[in-house]
């Protein structure tokens, strides 16, 4: 027994452990249905690799890890996957989450599996990968993927390995029984961890209320070659907290916001060590764990080796639950556990205890009364925080101040609430404050991100606008220059041939106008014709007036057409004289041809005589134009 230090505060709630240690660990009966949540660990939820209807064998991989901080899931027994979807999970919110539902077939058939031959010969990364593939996560309560913790030896110097055998919370005896019955397995697991992390010193921290466990461990450690010590610590809640145990055994405090590996210490639970042993030596993935079922409402409180995914109801039945006495069902211990609403919630990798309490054992919480500032809470806080101040700040929603008072160092052990004479649910306030702060930070990040995107978008729009402006300006300049050069060549030409170019120069701008005028005249004519027809059909007045207008418009239309055509021909001639662009010629020819085809097609469709006549004249014109252009094209194209 070496030196044991101390930590500030702590409480001594009644232990209530004797009820569940009278009988050895029992195997829970095989349940009919198993519900395996995809999120049983810290990190990203696992991704299913089986489909509904598949038959799986015991130990078969059913979900793979996603990303570095994640863990895999395996079928706890053989059976058929019935569904993959929402189901109640062990979470304080009572919400549902995705689970793989397995209907067991009773055969308990294992998949092919075997342990590693000589793990000491393997590359450490290969060994850790094997542990990862077996889905091992921290079984002390947090569920941190063990392979990530074992990789800490890569970039940290680990000189102390602490095995957490304290189990300080009342009622829970899972680790105690594990140590009494399977101490050899624990030692084997410790050996594997020690091989990976290479600490210079190993300590097992255990409370003095477990004499048989201490005895069992001592027996197994006889003659062990590792530098391993059993340190017995006085029973106090919460000595099993990672940082508290480190302080107890080494006197060192893990700095706020850092991990124990930063001061050269790694902590592992005895249950995790056993799971590592089974994974490495037998190739068995993590598919079961020891769960304490206790409380006054069960007739036979004991520890079960339960499959992951077993509904609480099955375990309670195996322990002979007496429904009439059940007042409150708690998952976890009385200090840090959560009251759950119903018993279809499954056992997960971190479930260590189910308490079926009667109303005398765990009555309804008395109503909250005003704080009398007695400071009992500060006296018992194991992290030396100021719970009273944290309470005032959380209540007054002054979250900045709460954070500055180290709110996030609170381990939510519940010692402060346990001693509060006003029965204030202090831990609820801290949890509320923490989640508010986290949400605010997430929203702030999102808002900053949205602002960046918004500003980037504004910049992009401005840039596009600027580019458009630049392009338009360039085009305008280009057009101006072209106009300028055209005017200068025409000016030269005008000196050489005044009569021909003048109409061309004047015709060029006028061409478009003439075209529009001709089109307008045509439309007016058509409208007048329609109006006349309408009037004639319906026998309206003013038909004579309309007829007069009609003849007038016909004439105007003719004139406009003539003017346009003349100008066009002049233009074409001028263009021909200038040495016309071949490409432009080709385009014009093609367009003329297309116009001809269109007119021909339209002609075949129309019935109206008047319209047909018009179209025929147009068609003749179009054909003439097309021929002219084609001829011109053949003349100008390279031989």
């Amino acid at each position: 027994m070496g030196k044991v230090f101390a930590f500030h505060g702590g409480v001594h709630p009644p232990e209530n452990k004797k009820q569940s240690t009278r009988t050895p660990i029992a195997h829970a009966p095989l349940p009919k249905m198993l519900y395996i949540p995809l999120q049983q660990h810290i990190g990203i939820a696992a991704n299913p690799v089986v489909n509904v209807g598949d038959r799986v064998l015991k130990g078969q991989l059913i979900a793979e890890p996603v990303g570095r901080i994640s863990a895999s899931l395996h079928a706890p027994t053989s059976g058929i996957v019935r569904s993959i979807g929402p189901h109640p999970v062990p979470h304080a919110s009572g919400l549902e989450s995705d689970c793989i539902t397995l209907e067991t077939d009773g055969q308990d058939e294992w998949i092919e599996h075997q342990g590693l031959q000589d793990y000491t010969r393997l590359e450490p990364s290969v060994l850790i990968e094997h542990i990862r593939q077996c889905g091992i996560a921290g079984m002390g309560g947090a569920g941190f993927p063990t392979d990530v913790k074992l990789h800490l030896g890569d970039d940290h110097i680990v000189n102390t390995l602490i095995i957490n055998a304290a189990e300080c919370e009342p009622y829970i005896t899972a680790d105690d029984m594990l140590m009494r019955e399977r101490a050899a397995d624990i030692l084997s697991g410790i050996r594997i961890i020690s091989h990976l992390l290479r600490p210079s010193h190993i300590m097992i921290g255990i409370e003095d209320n477990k004499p048989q466990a201490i005895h069992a461990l001592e027996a197994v450690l006889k003659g062990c070659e590792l530098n391993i010590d059993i340190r017995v610590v006085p029973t106090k809640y919460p000595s099993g907290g990672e940082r508290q145990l480190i302080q107890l055994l080494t006197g060192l405090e893990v700095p706020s916001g850092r991990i124990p590996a930063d001061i050269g210490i790694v902590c592992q639970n005895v249950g995790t060590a056993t799971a590592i042993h089974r994974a490495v030596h037998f190739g068995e993935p993590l598919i079961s764990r020891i769960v304490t079922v206790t409380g006054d409402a069960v007739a036979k409180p004991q520890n079960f080796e339960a499959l992951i995914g077993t509904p609480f109801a099955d375990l309670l039945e195996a322990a002979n639950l007496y429904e009439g006495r059940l007042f409150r069902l708690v998952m976890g211990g009385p200090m840090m556990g959560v009251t759950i609403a119903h018993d279809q919630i499954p056992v997960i990798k971190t479930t260590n205890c189910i308490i079926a309490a009667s109303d005398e054992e765990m009555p309804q919480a008395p109503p909250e009364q005003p704080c009398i500032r007695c400071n009992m809470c500060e006296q018992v806080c194991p992290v030396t925080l100021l719970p009273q101040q944290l309470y005032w700040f959380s209540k007054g929603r002054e979250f900045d101040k709460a954070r500055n008072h180290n709110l996030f160092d609170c381990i939510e052990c519940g010692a402060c609430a346990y001693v509060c004479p006003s029965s204030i649910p202090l831990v609820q306030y801290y949890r509320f404050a923490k989640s508010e702060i986290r949400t605010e930070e997430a929203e702030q990040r999102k808002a900053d991100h949205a602002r960046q995107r918004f500003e980037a978008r504004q910049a992009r729009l401005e840039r596009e606008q600027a580019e458009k402006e630049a392009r338009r300006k360039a085009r305008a300049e280009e057009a101006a220059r072209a106009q300028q050069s055209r005017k200068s060549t025409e000016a030269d030409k005008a000196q050489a041939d005044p009569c021909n170019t003048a109409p061309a120069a004047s015709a060029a701008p006028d061409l478009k106008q003439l075209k529009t005028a001709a089109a307008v005249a045509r439309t007016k004519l058509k409208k007048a014709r329609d109006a006349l027809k309408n009037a004639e059909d319906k026998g309206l007045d003013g038909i004579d007036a309309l007829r007069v207008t009609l003849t007038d418009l016909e004439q105007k239309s003719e004139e406009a057409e003539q003017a346009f055509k003349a100008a066009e021909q002049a233009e074409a001639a001028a263009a021909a004289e200038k040495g016309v662009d071949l490409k432009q010629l080709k385009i014009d020819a093609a367009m003329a041809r297309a116009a001809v085809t269109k007119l021909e097609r339209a002609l075949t469709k129309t019935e109206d005589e008047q319209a047909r006549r018009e179209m025929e004249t147009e068609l003749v014109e179009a054909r003439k134009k097309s021929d002219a252009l084609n001829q011109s094209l053949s003349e100008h194209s390279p031989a």
Partner: protein
Amino acid sequence: MTEFLLILISTVLVNNFVLVQFLGLCPFMGVSNKLETAMGMSLATTFVLTLSSVCSYLVYSTLLVPFELEYLQTIAFILVIAVVVQFTEMVVHKTSPLLYKLLGIFLPLITTNCAVLGVALLNIKKQNGFLESIAYGFGAAVGFSMALVLFSAIRERIAVADVPVPFRGAAIGMVTAGLMSLAFMGFAGLVQF
């Protein structure tokens, strides 16, 4: 040396300007809602007090006394204080716009802070020399700052406590100030100055 120490102890504890002599109560009540504003205000006031104490003394001794214009001391001191405060305002606006916004109207109101004028006038009354004026002004400022910071810290705690409805706000603030004042009066007789 001991004399300066005595001046400091006297102005900070025994004859604290806010809690014992009851000068400068306006910013004391007005800016003490939050600790950050209180600290900003106390820094600003320290700067103003020390500087105006020195300048007032200089103006008095070099301009007013030689020309036998001692009766102009009030006007001259107010002028000095106003200028110093204006200067401080500009500096604060430049260095910490947030503090400038938070202090709001109370920053220019340091001009009318009777503690500042009081220090200037008391320097004359006590016939302090140049160095003693500096010490006196600085000590007064430290005392003011201490009272302000302590008071704002208490007020912040009271803000989230269960105060009976009739007492909420200024009333409980006054009661607290009174109790603080009682405590500080316990220093009476420590130093005879």
